[in-house]
Every structure is written in structure tokens, then in C-alpha cells.
């Protein structure tokens, strides 16, 4: 399985930001078996990065790898949908 690279843009401690961090961290740990890289960017601290990436909505999760690059916006609170959107099949689920 190729390595997953994610960027998650959040806004401080907003409710949706906390939820999104929670979900993606869980998914990474439980579904990707250590084969991932996750960068969490707080736009309050780093607005230029948000500008570069053209982020509008918070939270925004960008899957940089594997290509094609895709974006998921929202609190990521429906885990099964996030998994589907990221193309992580349940085959990798390790209990």
C-alpha cells in the first residue's frame, strides 16, 4: 500500500476543527498502519499557507498522496464517508 500524505487545515480550537483532527488522527492510526504523513495547519498561525493552498472552508482535509489530489471539507464526523472519500478500503481495517 502506498504512503498516504495529508494536510488538514483547521482554525484554532473551533468545534469542527477539533472534531476533524480527532477523526483523521483515528483513521490514520487505525487504518493506515503507520504508513502515513499528516500535517495539521492552523490558519490563525499560518494564513499564508492557507492562501497558497487556496483554502476557503474550515476544516479542509487535502489528500496529497496518493494522487489524484482530493479535498474533503467539514468536520469529518461520518467516518465511513471519510474513508470512502479518501479511498481507504475497509480491507485495511485492523482491529
Amino acid at each position, binding site marked *: 500500500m502506498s504512503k498516504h500524505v495529508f494536510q488538514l*487545515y483547521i*482554525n484554532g480550537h*473551533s468545534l*469542527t476543527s477539533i*472534531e*476533524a483532527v480527532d477523526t483523521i488522527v483515528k483513521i490514520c492510526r487505525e487504518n493506515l498502519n503507520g504508513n502515513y504523513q499528516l500535517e495539521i495547519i492552523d*490558519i*490563525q498561525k499560518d*494564513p*499564508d499557507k*492557507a*492562501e497558497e493552498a*487556496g*483554502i*476557503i*472552508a*474550515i*476544516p*479542509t482535509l*487535502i489528500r496529497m498522496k496518493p494522487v*489524484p*489530489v*482530493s*479535498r*474533503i*471539507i*467539514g*468536520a*469529518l*464526523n*461520518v467516518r465511513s*464517508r*471519510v474513508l470512502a*472519500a479518501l479511498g481507504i478500503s475497509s480491507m485495511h481495517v485492523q482491529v
Partner: protein
Amino acid sequence: MFTPYLHFHNRLRLPMNLQKLETGNASFDHISHGGLPIGRTTLVAGSSGSAKTLFGAQFLALGIQLFNQPGVFVTFEEQVDDIRKNLKSFNWDIDTWEKEGKWIFVDAAPKEEVIIAVGDFDLSAFRIRLESAVRKCKAQRVVIDSIGSIFTQFHEEMHTIRRELIQVALTLSRLGATSIITAERLEEYGKITRFGVEEFLTDNVVILRNVLHNEKRRRTIEILKFRGSNHEKGENPFSINPEKAIVIIPLSAMNLKHVSSNERITSGIPALDEMINGGFYKGSINLVSGAIGAGKTLLVANFINGIRANKERCLLMAFEESCEQLYRNAAGWGIDFNQLEEEGLLKVICIYPEISSLEDHFINIQEVVKNFKPDRIAIDSLSALSRTSGDKGFREFIIAFTSYLKHQEITGMFTSNTPLLAGGTSDTEGNISPITDTIILLRYVEMSGEMQRSIAVLKMRGSRHDSSIRKFSITDQGANIGRHFEGISGILTGNPMLIKLE
């Protein structure tokens, strides 16, 4: 460009008038009584292709060019590169301004990547980027173009977008920049915007229209409301000029407070001067109506020749004949256009009316007038010019144009073609006659198997004039005005009859 704004500035201190930020587009500042409400957001709504983006970009560009006020351009729709490219043609050096930090793009245009929404989100990233851009360049002007496309980008989350746009509006008002938000509308006359943006951006609304009527495009701008402030009401036509971008032709703002001069100037024909009691009034608008070959251009040529005595300057806009033809005809009547031109007293512009819209003709004429500073202007003929526009557009043009000439104290002579050889009037005249000061009729008179020409002064505002219908002939020496037709009636209706004199 039109009237000074001084009296508006004086009124700013009254509670009814909130402060305005001069946009730098003189014609818009005129109809808006001074510009956009300062520190507030104005919604600019228009159908697709109505020049919303250009209106916003011009607001920023003029801010930088004329007032050194930096600006932020947010794009939700077009890609930044496309906007840079599209605006290049207007001599706005956006690349340099970007390097100098006077113009910042905030790119919120749709990305190629698929976006999936899972759960709640907000647009705080956008607000923070906007705020950081505004602070970075100390922007006094902000344009968001266009808000409707954010609804299309996040089409499943309409209520979220609404809620978030209210936040954006609040951010803008907190930042204190004067801003424009553009929005799409689907019909030219109907709901203000497609997604009801006006429900939360209600204070100031400007509408741009691009209406196709009788095969002619007609662009107009209307200030629907500026809460707590005055502005001109109704639609004003505008044009997109390759150099000056949006130029509005203010109609409603045309007031009738012109200086009326008592000074007379010669028509170039002594006998005609006599008929009108000493010549045309300076700054008056004079119409010559007649059928083809009745002598209209001859009167124009004499009107031009009349500048010799006092070394006045005259601009001739010829829409029917080529320059060669005109010069030759004038020479045939003993009038030397070449010499007048060499002396710098005459400028002749021969163009086909169809080459541009009426609004553009108006702007071009203004440009020429600004540079050449004529005392007189002759247009031969208005009827040819009227072909380029619908009826309404032409009427508006005439009002704006005559008012403009009066402001500049330029004496005008316009010709108009009548469709019938004898008698009759034309549609062109119906539009123009109420605002002309003098109307001269040139009519054919059919008498005993012979075509004779006649001349009569139908009206002359503020002056006595000869009321007889006189014989008029065209000779090698030019115009010859003779005695009045005795014993004949019905010339104007085209059915002349001999009346037995006792």
C-alpha cells in the same frame, strides 16, 4: 466631466448623506453624488456579461491610479491568471501593482480537485485570508467577484453559505474598507440576485444591465439604493471603452440650468441671420430638417464658414458623406474647407455611424471636444446616427449630448432627413425638436411642374424670427434666400396650392 460636485460635498454634513468614497470614474461619481458609501459594502448585481467584474476591477484600478489607495481583489469565479489577462487591455498595470503591494488577489476560484463535504464547515479560512490581505496592503478598496459562484461551489450547503456570507459581510464592515460584492442575476428585470444575496447585503445596491432590444445591445447602470444617502434614480446607459473601461452617460443628472447667452453668432448666410433676427444664440442647439438634396449640408457648410469672421473653431461630424465628397461640395459653393483646416479652425471627422454604438460615438465626440475645444459643432446627419441605436437609446443620447454641448457653451447645428420629398417630418425630429432652440425647415415645393426649394424658420427660442416661407436656391455662390412664396399655401403639408390674390 459634467457638473462640479461641489454642492454635493457641502451636503455631506447633513445626516441624510453618509460619506462617499470618490471612485475616480467621473461619470459614476456624478450619478452616485460622490461615489460609493465609504467603509460600506455595495452589492453590484448583473446578468452574465453585464461587466460586473470590470466594474469591480475599475474601482480598484482607479483607486490605485488616482488616489494611491491599495485594493484587494477576491475572485470566486474566474481564475486569477484569466483576470490578469482580461484586464491587460485597459492599460492597468496590475502586474506592477501586485509587485508594489498595491493590488492583492485572493484566489478563491474553484480548484480542479474534487471537493467532498462531510459534516459542518465554515468559511473562516476565507475570512482570515481576506483580512490578512487587507491588512497586508492596507487596502481601502475591496472587490469580491462574484459571490454567487460560492453557492455553486458548495451547492449542497446553501444555508451554511448564507450564514457564512453574513460573517464575511461583518468582517468587511469591521475592516472599514469600501467594498463591492458582485452577484449574478438571471433576468434583467426581476429578482435582484440569483441566490437572494440582497437579503443580507441590502444597504447599497447597484444593478448593471445588458439588454438586447431590437437587435441592439444596450448597457445600463442603475443605483437601486444607497441607504441614508442621495443618488440619481433610474437607468443610465454606459459603454465599455477600450481605454477608459466603463463610461456612464448620465441622463438623470442632466439639469436644465445652463447659462443662456444673449450673444448672437452668424449662420454664415446673411439673409438667414436676418430671418432669425441677427444669428443663432451662442450655445444654442439648431436643427435643420429637410429631404434629400434640400440643402441641409449647404447650410452646414455655411455654418462652418461662419467661423471665419471671429476665428471660432468648428468640429464637423459627418456620418453620411466621405471627406472628399464634402470638401468638393463645399468648394462648389465657394467654401474652402481645406484652408479652414490648415488654419486649425476646422476639424472634420467622417465616419460611418455603424462602426460603433451611440454611447461610444458620444464618448468619442467628448474626447475630440476636450482636445479641439470647438466653439461650434455640426452633425450631418443625426438621422444617420440614429440608425445605430433603438428609439429609447437615441432619445437618451440626444438629451445627454445637447445637455453636454450647452454645458460647454458650444453652438450646435444638427441636420435631420425627412423621408418625404415635400412636407413631412421624421422620427429623428420627434425626438430632438423639443430640446432644440431653433428649427429650420428646408422643403421642396412643387409648382407648375417645377421643383422649387423653400426655407422657413419654424421656431426660435427666446427671439423673434421671420415667419414667412421663403424661396431658397442653391447656386455656384452658395445659398441664396429670396422672397417669400406669395399666394401659395400648403407648402408644409406637401400640397401647395395657388391662392388667388385680390
